[in-house]
């Protein structure tokens, strides 16, 4: 019922056995994803995708998913993956989101999306205002204003390479490559792909 998903490539006609297995596994993953997408709004999402329907689910439904519910950045995550930037995801965007969130995506790709998520005002820089919003979301606004200012200053001091007072993507990527917790906590993991797989 789904068209050829773009999660893998086939260069040769002759597929070795392991690639066939991987194909099957990925196909099942996508089917499972479709199941999750469908159950969020059974009346709107069709079961048959052969005609490529133009269905988008609003952000409110998606941020109530159990995987994203407790995440303080859930709105930003959904906005980064939506085509129109408003947070409504088509099924393609939905699959895209989980593919980047899984452990299969490379570090560079995760860094790009991490940057998008932390860039609240979407000006391609993480400025002080973005940092303040990030901190407030992380600590649920328990820090005092003075503490927030201090931490923002420290972060910019540590990461800003070119001295413009805000973090461009080059600064962010350089900093995140040194952060040991990035690949461990961020966007990784068995749990997400287990939810996708459903069978493990």
């Amino acid at each position, binding site marked *: 019922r789904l068209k050829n998903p773009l999660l893998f*490539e086939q260069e040769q006609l002759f597929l070795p056995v392991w690639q066939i297995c991987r194909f099957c596994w990925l196909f099942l993953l996508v089917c499972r994803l479709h199941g999750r997408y469908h159950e969020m709004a059974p009346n709107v999402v069709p079961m048959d995708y052969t005609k490529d329907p133009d269905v988008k689910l609003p952000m409110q439904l998606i941020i109530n998913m159990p995987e994203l519910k407790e995440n303080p950045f859930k709105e930003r995550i959904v906005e980064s993956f939506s085509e129109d*930037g408003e947070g409504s995801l088509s099924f393609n965007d939905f699959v895209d989101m989980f593919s980047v969130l899984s452990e299969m*995506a490379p570090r560079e790709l995760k860094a790009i999306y991490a940057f*998008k998520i932390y860039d609240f005002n979407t000006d391609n*820089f993480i400025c002080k205002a973005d940092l303040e919003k990030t*901190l407030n979301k992380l600590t*649920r606004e328990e820090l005092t204003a003075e503490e927030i200012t201090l931490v923002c200053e420290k972060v910019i001091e540590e990461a800003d390479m070119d*001295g413009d007072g805000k973090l461009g993507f080059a600064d962010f990527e350089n900093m995140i490559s040194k952060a040991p917790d990035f690949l461990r906590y*961020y966007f990784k993991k068995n749990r997400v792909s287990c939810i996708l797989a459903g069978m493990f």
Partner: protein
Amino acid sequence: MSGLGAAAGPGWQRDSGGLSLLARGAARRRTLWVSCRSCPAASRRGGAAGHSGAPAGPAGHRRQPRDPARALPQETGEQAECPARELPVCMAEKRRTRHSQQAETECLSRWEKWRRTSRKSLKKALSEVKGLSSYLVLWRRDIHSIEGKFGTGIQSYFSFLRFLVLLNFIIFILMFSFVTLPTIISKYGLFNSTIAYISPKNTDICTIYKPSGNKGLVYFYTYLKDLLSGTGFLEVTSLFYGYYSIDAVWISIMRYNLPLAYLLATFAYLALSFLWIIKRSVEGFKHNLVHDADPFQSYCNKVFAGWDFCITDLSAARLKHRSLQHELQTDLQEEKLKQKIAERGMGEKLRIYSLRIFINIIVIAILSGCFYSIYRVTVFSQENSNDIDSANSQVNLLVQYLPSMVITLANFIGPLIFEFLIKFEEYTPAFEIKLTLLRCVFVRLASIGVLLFSLWSQISGCGSDKCKPCGYNYKLYPCWESDVGQEMYKLMIFDFIVILAVALFADFPRKLLVTHCSCKLVQWFGQKEFAISDNVLEIIYGQTICFIGTFFSPLLPAIATIKYFIIFYVKKIVLIHTRKPAAKPIRASSSNFFFLVVLLIGLLLAFVPLAFSIARIPSSKACGPFMNFNTSWEVIPDTILGFPTGLQQFLFGISSEAFAVPFFVILCIIMFYVIALARAHKRVVEQLREQLVLESRDKMFLIRKIAEAQK
């Protein structure tokens, strides 16, 4: 911002924050990097110069996620090598990219096509193999889950434990296959092998050795006692040095020189451990050299990589929020403290320095007290364990274990005292942790050293001419290597028992008490935090014992492997059931590099007693493979004398001063050169950082100039 974009010429694209010439590169590349929003407009290929700047007008405030995309590593001029799925664009664009890539492949020659496809499949195969091999890593899933629940600090402890299990296993394989296996093969006559026992050169009093391997009916209790203390039936097994009184093993016509193999296997396992530890610590060392700050403690790491994206549980989320808040607040407090320290006046400084000197003197006094007591207890234990008859078996066992108990007590009390004292010294929190750790490391490793020293003083204790005939105290220690092996064995067993006992009798009852008893005192006592450094020092202490003891007891690494294997599961269960994820973050030095450095110190410490036993103390004449040699080391010059003359001269030349001194000088020169190189690289890194700042200022300047020119 938008005005500038529109006014800039077709060749110039406005990088937010800078300018870059997009005239370079294929048009193809431009369309690859087009943002989602321009998808419908991007159906035409090539030449669309205004893509990135196109929605500059009314949509200029909408997101333009092209800047991060441009930072993707791409080879200049060539077709993008990365697969379509790794591009940060929307699905429709990925499909288009894939079609275009496939279309291009059609136009290439067959050779190019084949080369490209084979390269892609090779890369994919390699990544599959890598992925699969990571599944074969021992305890991968356990450590993963621990990391997810308790953080990277505790996970580093378990990874270190896993490394030690592997290290011990490899050492065991080494010793077993070169020393024990030939012995067993020849003893049972397998593969047409015969054994040649050592016939003592002269039968004098030195060669009398009657180990009391249990014969006949004995109590079960005696077996248990022997198992725990390595005496009795265990003393004559292949566990200890005394079993290997073999000169050579003949396998059909080949002669296998067992004494030489024994010594060389010892050197081999020491060298192997040394190289493996250094190899693992190189990564951390490189990192420490360039970046002075601990990456775990940086603010960026906490803010951007602090949130665990796998948390789905409300209480876990609340805990994480609180933990992050505490971490950031603690960091800020540390900053304030550092500032306060920097602002100290003269009088204050004097007071603090004198206080520190006083406290260090107290620490030294305590340590000397500990070491002296260990010495006395060891001497007492050695003297009395041979005197008391087997009727008082319980007391005998207690006396035998007395050194281990005192060492464990010292290792337990020492850190508590140090933690208490360091508060008065008023260092920064980070330095406090380091200094306490250093002192604890010193206590643990030095106590082993003191034990061995007291053993040696007993063995070579030649008051009243006890050791004239043999060079060592032959009355008390006819087979002194087995005796040392037994001490090491006892230390290891006791260490293991203590770890299990603490888990069973201290952690679980404490957790039960805290959960079910709600009286204030108990709640204030609270659940114990998982002290990473203490646990790591514990296992490093056990590993040092193993390093030293393997020469005297070749099967000790097997016991160590099993011990660490069981400890992994015990600690994991204790962690999961009695510790909750800390609301306050663990501010210990949890870097892997630190653990490996301390392990290396333990290994280097192990070299000293081994070198002493092998080269200085006469080997026992009553047992072991070195019966007919003066010292254990002598087997090597002996073997060399059997080599052809040319090789002999070469080998003797290498060990002479004429060679050693210049060699040492050259090594020093190389080391200084490498250090200078490292310093130069560090300077270059600093310079490059400054250059980045200058470059961005230049960019700003140029933008301003252009803006002025536009007006």
